[in-house]
């Protein structure tokens, strides 16, 4: 295996060319396009990191796109947002869920050039909830908004906020956890999945789960407006005694409204374990760098960053800055080492091919067409808003395959079928045909009439690592030259078309070849990597 040159968490000081930028952008954005690279032209390493770790501005909220299909009787007009409206009924809620799903994928498809959107996915996988279980569209919006707000904020505040979030309270039965009938669901996941993990140094006990469940009794919310409240009459006011893992700490039971404060004490108690910071850095590592955490990685990378995280009072921004600036992150051994998740895959494809979608002002059509991309991510096994369980998507954590879990004979075929449909303008919704302008894509390369340069540049931007010269030559010959061996055939066709852009026949010949070329380039296994 190609050796990792540096495990160091110290600042990277190597070359900063397009090759290194491409790797960085592939990991922090959903794919790295030509435009993305251009935006970082002439910028120093420090400038790039600083720019990319900033939060992006809050997006405009999701809208009523469904008015003409299913009237919203709660007073929300077509094209207006529903996020502050009353629940209405199940049918309206279902339409809002569709609106939110489309809206969420819009944030990815048209993402700002910062890590923010990908971090939201990271936290969604970490503090996982399933929309199909808690159902209420407003809760889902508030939940993702909470992820958005805290994604680069303070982890302590983040955990406190997510614990009281209505979507989470509903999803893990927090509001059903009462002194008479304690429900351990959230208490268990808070430790197992959200804060400590199940590593060898995470030794909380079943007893700790039960005691934590008692601490967490009494949290409640209103299903009508999603407002959190504390119901002191359902709170267990007895003392809670934790195991020696938590240094036998007692959380003194409190009556009335003060009972709610025990939850802060619980989170504070868990945060005293250095394992929390390590668990979070490991999780970031598996998501953004690589699945395998060797002893060297643990010692030289995870531990120093975990220490920094603790010293910075669990602020995420300094941690992320150090993480993405590190020598280890930028080690060339990791170029193309990760299999793109379905969302990575569909969003990078969209951002590369830039298909024409309806005007945003045509809200119904715009939302419907964007939903097609949500659907595509779904059939390849990643529906945003609906991870398969509270532990998130298995590909982000499950040994031994990890990211290979995304790929099997079914999903691999569907990924490629999706691109085929997109390139050949077969993606449709509500009568609207999504079109990809492959001629425009080719025109943006430096010398599209020169087939070697064309293939080199297209593969250079589409693929995270260099592809075999023989493969490029074969594609050139079989596709651009229709089996001929003289480069001139393509040059002549391209030039003729440039001279007669209105000639349908010439246009078709050029377009067909470019479509197939892109289909083959994106069909290469290299395109599955980031």
């Amino acid at each position, binding site marked *: *295996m190609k050796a990792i040159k540096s495990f160091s968490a110290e600042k990277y000081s190597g070359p900063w060319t397009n090759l290194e930028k491409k790797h960085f952008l592939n990991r922090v954005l959903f794919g790295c396009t030509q435009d993305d690279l251009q935006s970082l032209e002439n910028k120093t390493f420090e400038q790039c990191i600083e720019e990319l770790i900033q939060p992006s501005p809050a997006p405009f909220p999701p809208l009523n796109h469904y008015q003409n299909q299913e009237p919203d009787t709660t007073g929300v007009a077509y094209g207006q947002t529903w996020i502050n409206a009353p629940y209405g009924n199940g049918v309206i809620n279902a339409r809002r869920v569709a609106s939110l799903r489309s809206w969420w994928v819009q944030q990815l498809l048209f993402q700002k050039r910062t890590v923010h959107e990908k971090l939201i996915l990271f936290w969604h996988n970490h503090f996982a909830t399933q929309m199909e279980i808690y159902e209420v569209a407003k809760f889902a919006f508030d939940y993702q908004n909470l992820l958005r707000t805290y994604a680069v904020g303070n982890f302590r505040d983040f955990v406190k906020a997510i614990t009281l979030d209505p979507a989470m309270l509903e999803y893990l039965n927090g509001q059903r956890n009462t002194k008479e009938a304690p429900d351990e669901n959230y208490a268990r996941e808070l430790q197992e999945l959200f804060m400590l993990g199940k590593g060898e140094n995470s030794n909380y006990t079943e007893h700790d789960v039960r005691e934590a469940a008692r601490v967490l009794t009494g949290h409640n919310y209103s299903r009508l407006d999603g407002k959190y409240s504390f119901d002191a009459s359902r709170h267990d006011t007895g003392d809670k005694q934790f195991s020696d893992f938590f240094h036998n700490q007692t959380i003194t039971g409190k009556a009335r409204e003060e009972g709610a404060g025990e939850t802060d004490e619980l989170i504070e108690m868990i945060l005293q374990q250095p394992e929390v910071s390590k668990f979070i850095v490991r999780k970031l590592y598996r998501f953004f760098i690589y699945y395998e955490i060797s002893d060297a990685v643990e010692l030289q990378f995870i531990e120093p960053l975990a220490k920094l995280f603790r010293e910075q009072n669990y602020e995420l921004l300094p941690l992320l800055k150090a993480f993405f600036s590190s020598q280890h992150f930028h080690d060339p051994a990791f170029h193309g080492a990760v299999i793109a998740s379905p969302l990575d895959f569909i969003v990078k494809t969209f951002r590369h091919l830039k298909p024409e979608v309806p005007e945003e002002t045509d809200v119904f059509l715009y939302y419907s067409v964007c939903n097609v991309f949500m659907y595509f991510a779904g059939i390849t096994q990643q529906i945003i808003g609906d991870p398969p369980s509270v532990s998130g998507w298995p590909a982000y954590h499950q040994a031994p395959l990890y990211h290979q879990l995304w790929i099997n004979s079914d999903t691999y075929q569907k990924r490629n079928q999706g691109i085929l449909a997109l390139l050949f303008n077969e993606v449709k919704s509500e009568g609207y045909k999504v079109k990809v302008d492959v001629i425009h894509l080719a025109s943006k390369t430096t010398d599209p009439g020169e087939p070697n340069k064309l293939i080199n540049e297209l593969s250079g931007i589409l693929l995270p690592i260099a592809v075999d010269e023989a493969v490029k030559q074969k594609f050139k010959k079989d596709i651009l030259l229709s089996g001929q061996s003289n480069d001139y055939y393509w040059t002549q066709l391209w030039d003729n078309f440039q001279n007669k852009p209105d000639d349908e026949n010439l246009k078709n010949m050029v377009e067909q070849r470019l479509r197939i070329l892109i289909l083959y380039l994106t069909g290469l296994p290299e395109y599955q990597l980031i």
Partner: protein
Amino acid sequence: MAAGGIAPYFMGGLPLSAFGQLNETALGDDKVLVVIQMAGGNDGLNTLIPVDQYSRYQSARKNIAIPENKLLSIPQSDKIGIHPSLEKITQLFEEGKGTIIQDVGYPDPDFSHFRSTDIWNTASDSDKHVLSGWAGRYLSIENPDYPNGYPNTNHPDPLSIQIGSVLNTSLQGPVYPMGMAIADPNFFYELIAETPVATTSTYAEKELAFLKQVANQTNQYSGVIRDAGQRITNQSGYPDESLANQLKIVAKLIAGGLRTKFYFVQIGGFDTHDNQVQNGDVTKGEHAELLQKLSEAVFAFTRDLEKQGISERVLTMTYSEFGRRIRSNASLGTDHGAAAPMFLFGSHVNSKVFGENPILPDNPQTEDNVPMQYDFRSVYASVLERWFCLDTGSVSDVMLKPFQSLPLIQGGPCGFITANEPQPEILFKAYPNPFEDFLTIEFESKGGYNYVQVFNSRGQQIGSPVSADYPKGLQNAVLKTSRWPKGMYFLRWQNALEQKVIRIIKI
């Protein structure tokens, strides 16, 4: 037993000889195991209700207890009341095509879905992390070179198939996944994989090699799967619902001639912390709907297999990562628990109830669980031995250690004949009960290995005072129990095909 029927001489216009190897099929080689994963943790106590302890059941689960007069019965036992949604399944039991294995679990149960699912899929001890799956290990013993050189004339078809888009971890081999995921057998897309990987010296090349291998296999297997699917056009009726649709594809592929050994299908939603039953009618609600889907899908599948003339070749098994607590919670639901029943279906099952009903305490506490009577690995091991005719040594290799073999299969390929004569009462007792500082256990050994485990009320194994070979005859052992905390315990004894669980109380 209904006649299996004669395999159609022609399948979709192709003479049967097109599948040349059928006559050379080794013992057990044309046998198929279909595994239904009931994801989320099925509530065993509301699936099979212990009517011999109905009042204790009722008082432990006041808000979700199924009324006694709604329960169904099966000829195999008068101590079990069947959930009313399992009506179609009771029909299969009447026909001698169903088996129940009571209280299946493992020592020291883990209550995390995540972990417990891994334990069931990898067949590991609860404190060990194993990365390969049990079915994957079995397939890798039979196919040590896989995927190199596959498909080939002896193995033209996928070794195992997951219906859906996510491969079950059970099918993970020591290195490679041993199965293929298929959502729709009629539609395949040719993947690019032409360039072989020269080296795997970088992380990216490692993934490229994996991707090309998946692409190559998909391309190579897609033809046989599509052909098998297209041969079968006369399937009998199925409900239009996910599990039934998955089983319909399985029946189609088996009948179409695939020699794939394992099919995995899934039905999710058993994590019934709340609204397990409907407020006002406990025979309805989420759990009832799930059981009905299971029941109707398995029934339709059985009838279709019979129609296709392949029912003799197919064994179906259900599993779930855990059962649920004895006591219900305040949300009309139940929390994560321990042991629960498994079902087997097929024309070669030994159609009886294995094991006794779980013993319910008079006043169960929140954390009280159903203790295990059977280790799930014992069920897997018995299926490998008695359905796939795997030798005992290899079974232990696959299961990572030896497990008790259970006579789950009647007749069938490996020649296990299990006449169901009335069993004499098994002698296993402990006295005094309740006990204080000493406890004597007595058991009648049939010779060979005897094993006694002690579990606390949460299902954690706290010891195994007997674990050795004993001669035939009455045996005893005295346990010093002065340091045991007061409370309820379970003793489980096993010897050869027998096992029994008894409840004891330390005062």
